[in-house]
């Protein structure tokens, strides 16, 4: 045991000497390994960043929130089936009916009127700006109780205003900044589809997912009373529902909602639901299944890099064995066993790739700092450890053949080698 330990330390010293003596060659050899490790570092940190950001984003919608849509929930890939596209809409009445469920705290319908009946964007204009790129949603004042949107200034509209078709609006923070650059928007008017709405409240700014902006800007939104929206777009039934479960009753709420909607939408027994429930948790798990696919792709890509690097290492080690045939002969003459020579070259290969791994880790580390400028991310601990272990492992695996060739050299022949 003591012998082995001495060997590793001595061999490490020798390997570092060899590395120093052939700087350029060593660097070029381990380039593939470096790239592989950099890839691992970067992609793992991107995945971690996207994961935490999405998680935070989803949690801001409330962990007790359940979104109900007429389509299947989850992340869609490809076209929807004909059955799914032909489904009947959810209705205002559905939303009201859900309110009566014991596990449901509240339930509000949303009607998207960003596009008019003809599919054109509705124009919005205020003192500062005229634009069509704003999401307009009709909803009920109960929405405020869901806690996902907080009124920063003014108030939410009331049930009375909804019932009396009053043209009032609660606007997102971006809308407030863009359309009312001077002074407060509250009490002022904003024109939506040719009608004058009175702004009664401005919402607090929400955290953005990635860089956000454009149509995806969570703050670029206007909420109007549901009845008013219905009047602006009488034929539309593009309703989705936000239900909030009572505390600790998330599972019960989902079961009750599913049961009730199956009855209301006349789903025959044994047939799948013709609607979808979406929760932060569900979305996160389906999102994570995509992320894990990306992670597997990453492992494959960086493995290819590491393999290519490994072949390079094997090549250079074979050259090194040939160059040092005489040295091997001398070592054997003065008492090196086959295993000693084997270890020497294995450790040399592992040192070479391990060094490449360390350089890759440092470069990857720097790059993740740059990444953090655009994506709040961290490097998961397994990435540098795994990267380093993999690069050393590559050296050990691809060093086996050259080391074995060195170990079985005949000492007499080797000593005579010129």
């Amino acid at each position, binding site marked *: 045991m*003591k*012998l082995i330990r*001495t*060997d590793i330390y*001595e061999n490490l010293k020798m390997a570092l*000497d*060899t590395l120093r*003596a052939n700087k350029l060659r060593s660097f070029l050899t381990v380039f593939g390994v470096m790239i592989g490790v950099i890839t691992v570092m970067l992609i793992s940190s991107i995945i971690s960043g996207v994961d935490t950001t999405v998680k935070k984003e989803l949690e801001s919608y409330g962990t007790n929130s359940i979104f109900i849509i007429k389509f299947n929930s989850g992340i869609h890939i490809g076209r929807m089936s004909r059955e799914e596209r032909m489904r009947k809409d959810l209705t205002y009445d559905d939303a009201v009916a859900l309110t009566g469920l014991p596990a449901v705290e509240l339930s509000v319908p949303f009607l998207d009127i960003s596009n008019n009946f003809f599919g054109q964007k509705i124009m919005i204009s205020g003192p500062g700006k005229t634009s069509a790129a704003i999401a307009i949603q009709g909803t009920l004042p109960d929405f405020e109780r869901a806690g996902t949107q907080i009124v920063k200034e003014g108030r939410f509209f009331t049930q009375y205003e909804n019932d009396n078709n009053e043209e009032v609006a609660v606007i997102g923070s971006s809308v407030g900044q863009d359309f009312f650059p001077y002074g407060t928007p509250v009490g002022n008017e904003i024109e939506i589809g040719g009608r004058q709405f009175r702004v009664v409240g401005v919402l607090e700014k929400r955290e953005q997912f990635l860089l956000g902006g454009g149509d995806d800007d969570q703050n670029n939104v206007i909420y109007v009373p549901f009845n008013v929206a219905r009047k602006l777009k009488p034929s539309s039934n593009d309703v989705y529902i936000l239900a909030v479960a009572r505390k600790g009753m998330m599972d019960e709420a989902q079961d009750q909602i599913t049961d009730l909607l199956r009855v209301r939408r006349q789903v025959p027994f044994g047939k799948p639901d013709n609607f979808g429930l979406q929760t932060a948790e569900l979305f996160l798990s389906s999102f994570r299944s995509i992320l894990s696919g990306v992670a597997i792709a990453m492992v494959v890509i960086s493995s290819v890099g590491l393999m290519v690097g490994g072949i390079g290492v094997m090549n250079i080690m074979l050259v090194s064995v040939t160059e040092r045939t*005489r*040295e091997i*002969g*001398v*070592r*054997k*003459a*003065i*008492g*090196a*066993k*086959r*295993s*000693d020579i084997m270890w020497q070259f294995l450790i040399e290969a592992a040192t070479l790739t391990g060094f490449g791994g360390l350089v890759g880790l440092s470069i990857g580390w720097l790059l993740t700092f740059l990444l953090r400028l655009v994506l709040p991310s961290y490097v998961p601990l397994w990435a540098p450890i795994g990267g380093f272990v993999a690069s050393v492992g590559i050296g050990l695996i691809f060093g086996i053949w050259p080391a074995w060739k060195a170990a079985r050299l005949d*000492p*007499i*022949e080797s*000593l005579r080698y010129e």
Partner: protein
Amino acid sequence: MSDATLTSPAVEPVVQPEPPRPHDAGSLISMRNIWKTYEMGSEKVHALHGVSFDIPKGEYIAIIGPSGSGKSTLMNLIGCLDTPSQGEYWLNAKNVSEMDDDELARIRNQEVGFVFQTFNLLARATALHNVELPLIYGGVSSAQRHEMAKKALAAVDLTDRMMHRPNELSGGQRQRVAIARALVNHPSILLADEPTGALDSRTSMEIMDLFERLHSEGNTIIVVTHEPDVAARAHRVVSIRDGLIEKDEKSR
């Protein structure tokens, strides 16, 4: 292999070897009826035709012979780099002829100190580290290794050159480092293969003087050479020709 290829072809030897005696337990080296046969394609070539001799401890012996005589083959066998095809080789009361690779490596490490014509030092290592090398393979601890290597370098008067690399040393100094490396493990034999072949005559003299001194200190020295001057310094000369011992004479 050049020696072997030039040796007489695969006819059975005309000269019958002396009848094998049991090995001499008192000798450091005891070779009994050693054959070495190489297969060159379908042909068998005998490099040694049943060689027997003894070397007592503390002897200074030269092995001479023209190229192709089997001299190098004999040296490789004595140095435990190779095993005989037939016959028994006892080194320091151990039967080397039946050892496997790892056991041979251990014997080379403990019992044999090699000195080569071209020194064969590690170019990137200091003189001290070169001398430590056999101790590393012998499993000696780092601190002890240092001490032993320093002592061995002092014995060849290189204390002030310990931290120099081979390319910073003269030929004679390099050969002295190599001798220190050969002696550092206190081996049973010092086996030198043309130790002065790469040196000028003045430096050769120095090295031969050093051998003489080492011998007087009790070391067993075997020099393989084809230079009569070098052989003349030894106290016993064994001449090899065509794979057999031609002459074995004590000069002093």
